[in-house]
């Protein structure tokens, strides 16, 4: 009983000891904040990456891919059982994207991905990253009559406005065609290089296109109706660019725009513009072929790695252009199948099951974590290192407690003698100081926790205040992927931090407590 009583009394009367736990408080607060922000950051990034990538990717080692995705999907469903929630075939090839800005051709290296618009959104958050509201519901690869989202919103939070997108789509296309016509009239009518090339491509691909069309149904569960038929230029038809479009294409927004010094997005290409893509055919050796596409939307995942690399087209167009459809049987090839797992399915377990079911020489099965392994493990590593460093701060605070406790033991020597004289045992005396250390640790840790949580909950307000005071952007959304600093408070991490801090406080009171316990009662009573 006296241990408890004296601990409480010492806690109330020894302010110097409370000063020593301020460093514990600060250390704990810092750890709480850093862990919350890092966890929030990591979680946001993971969910974003996960939203971009499907759970599992089943792919062939060869760019030419494998035939008959339907059969493969049946096999995957057989091997994966109930864990498979959805699948969609894709064709991904490296390609060059070219577009013209003020008469100058700009070419960029991209990953050209043929997707099945009907099913692709079922395996990832693909749709959410598009700019047109109707495409977010269902991508059609058709140009829209304006209405693109100019908010640049991320997760419902409005970003900087993009006025350039206001009249994107058909209005932009019509105006551009009109300008080109005026320009051509002024120049005396030489045909512009783009148009000439377009004609050449049309001439080269039209016969094959006519043959393939009946079989060119999208793989998977897509409806057989070809949504692009109406928009596709027909054989022998002179295309009117003001009213017709080429095959739709959705490039990553990073390919089509750049961010200037003020943080506004400047667009090089808008929905409605035509671009050219050069990519290898499926044969051996691969030959480069080109085709013209019309930008119908932008893909913006806020992960610059993807936004400046991915370009999406309808899978059947890409299969046809690459020669991935066998002319006799009409069986198409794909080079990967994206798999969505049912909720609660074990990612690695299903992956391993699929790996066993297919010969590894021909197919690779990887999870989204595997694909982003280095990035995710870098974040984890960063978190671990930060935690170690911050914990060292708390450990340093422990030495402060040690020193102050020794002082208190010296100061309290006579009281210790008194307690021993009235029958307190050595373990009881040690208990007072250990309990005192525990109490200080709890007070320091608790205050640190409160401070840390307060900072965490108000971190964006604090950021705004700092930005307002200094006039500088503390958290630049163009560098990070978010407008707000994301935070996640993980009770497990917090209990771990508090336990560690209290443990350090108790551990550093062990030596002074032992010293107090060993004091000889007579000498302690004589102490002045």
């Amino acid at each position, binding site marked *: 009983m006296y241990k408890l*009583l*004296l601990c409480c009394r010492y806690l109330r009367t020894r302010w110097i000891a409370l000063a020593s736990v301020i460093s514990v408080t600060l250390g704990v607060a810092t750890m709480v904040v850093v862990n919350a922000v890092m966890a929030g950051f990591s979680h946001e990034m993971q969910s974003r990456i996960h939203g971009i990538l499907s759970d599992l990717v089943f792919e062939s080692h060869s760019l030419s891919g494998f035939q008959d995705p339907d059969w493969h999907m049946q096999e995957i469903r057989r091997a994966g059982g109930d864990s498979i929630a959805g699948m969609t075939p894709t064709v991904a090839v490296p390609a060059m994207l070219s577009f013209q800005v003020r008469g100058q051709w700009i070419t960029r290296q991209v990953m050209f991905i043929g997707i099945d618009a009907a099913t692709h959104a079922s395996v990832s958050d693909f749709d959410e990253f598009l700019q047109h509201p109707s495409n977010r519901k269902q991508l059609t690869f058709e140009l829209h009559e304006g209405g693109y989202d100019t908010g640049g919103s991320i997760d419902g939070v409005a970003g900087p406005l993009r006025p350039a997108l206001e009249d994107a789509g058909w209005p932009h296309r019509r105006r551009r065609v009109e300008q080109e016509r005026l320009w051509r009239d002024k120049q005396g009518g030489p045909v512009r290089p783009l148009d000439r090339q377009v004609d050449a491509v049309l001439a080269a691909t039209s016969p094959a296109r006519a043959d393939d069309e009946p079989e060119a149904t999208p793989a998977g569960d897509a409806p057989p109706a070809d949504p692009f038929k109406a928009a596709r230029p027909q054989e022998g038809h002179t295309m009117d660019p003001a009213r017709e479009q080429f095959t739709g294409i959705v490039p990553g927004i990073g390919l089509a725009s750049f961010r200037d010094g003020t943080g506004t997005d400047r667009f090089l290409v808008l929905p409605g513009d035509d671009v050219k893509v050069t990519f290898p055919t499926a044969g051996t050796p691969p030959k480069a072929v080109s085709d013209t596409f019309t930008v119908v939307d932008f893909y913006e995942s806020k992960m610059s790695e993807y936004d400046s690399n991915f370009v999406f087209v309808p899978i059947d167009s890409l299969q046809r252009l690459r020669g991935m459809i066998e002319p006799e049987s009409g069986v198409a090839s794909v080079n990967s199948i994206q798999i969505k797992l049912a909720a609660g399915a074990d990612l690695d377990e299903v992956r391993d099951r699929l790996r066993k079911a297919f010969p590894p020489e021909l197919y690779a099965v990887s999870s989204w974590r595997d694909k982003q392994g280095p990035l995710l493990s870098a974040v984890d590593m960063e978190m671990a290192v930060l935690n170690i460093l911050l914990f060292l701060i708390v450990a340093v605070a422990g030495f402060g407690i040690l020193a102050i406790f020794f002082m208190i033991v010296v100061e309290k020597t*006579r009281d210790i003698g*008194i307690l*021993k004289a*009235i*029958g*307190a*045992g050595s373990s009881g005396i040690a208990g007072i100081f250990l309990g005192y250390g525990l109490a200080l640790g709890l007070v320091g840790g608790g205050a640190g926790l409160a401070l840390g949580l307060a900072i965490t909950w108000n971190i964006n307000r604090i950021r705004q205040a700092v930005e307002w005071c200094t006039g500088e952007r503390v958290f630049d959304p163009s560098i990070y992927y978010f407008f707000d600093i994301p935070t996640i408070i993980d009770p497990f991490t917090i209990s771990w931090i508090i336990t560690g801090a209290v443990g350090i406080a108790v551990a550093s009171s062990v030596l002074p407590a032992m010293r107090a316990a060993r004091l000889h009662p007579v000498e302690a*009573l004589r102490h002045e």
Partner: protein
Amino acid sequence: MSSLLDARPRGDIARPAAAEPLLSGRGLRKRYRSGSTILEVLRGVDLEVSPGEFVAVVGQSGSGKSTLLHLLGLLDAPDSGSVHLGGRRIDNLPVSARDTIRNREIGMVFQSYHLLPELDAVENVLAPLYVRHGVIEWLRRRAEARRKAVGLLERFGLGGRLHHRPRQLSGGEMQRVAIARALVAGPRLLLADEPTGNLDAESGAGILEALVELNRADGLSIVMVTHDPVVAARADTIVRLSAGCHAAHVSPRVHE
């Protein structure tokens, strides 16, 4: 008022001479090492305290009076010799058993009061009971213990100072709190080390009267160390220590 101390086994007020001594020290030796010199403080002291006896230990400074009291009170262990309480040898008991004896059977009063500065008067009196009981046990006995402590303080005229901290009390008041603390656990024996040494004559006389009263009315056995012959004269027996040796054993009982 004496009922407050009823828990203590009462010694026989008649004090038969043949009665077994309550406390006895036999051949007590104690030496302290200070650097290279060895200081022989006690060189074989014998002492017996009968139940209900008031023994004064007198002697010059450095004669080993306080050391003797520490040995009797188990604050220190003798180099040789033995201490018996109620016929049982207690100086060689395990540490925890000695702690228990200090807590339950021996009350101690010191020259400089030795109160805990963080606790108020009542809490200081209760300190031995705090030490004795765990939290739960304490919560069950709190009311009773508190009554007892307040009763003791009131008996010593401190009824108006129950919640004063030691530094708000005068020396005489502090010593009376210390005596109340020594009595709260119901000990058989009170050891007092120069209880009047730091006090002015009037306060000192008050303390002395309190001790005499405890001895006479309650039959409490008291061993008191003092260098003041006037104070010592109030005791039943005076033991004179000289240079660590038992020099004289006088029984004045002049006041009876």
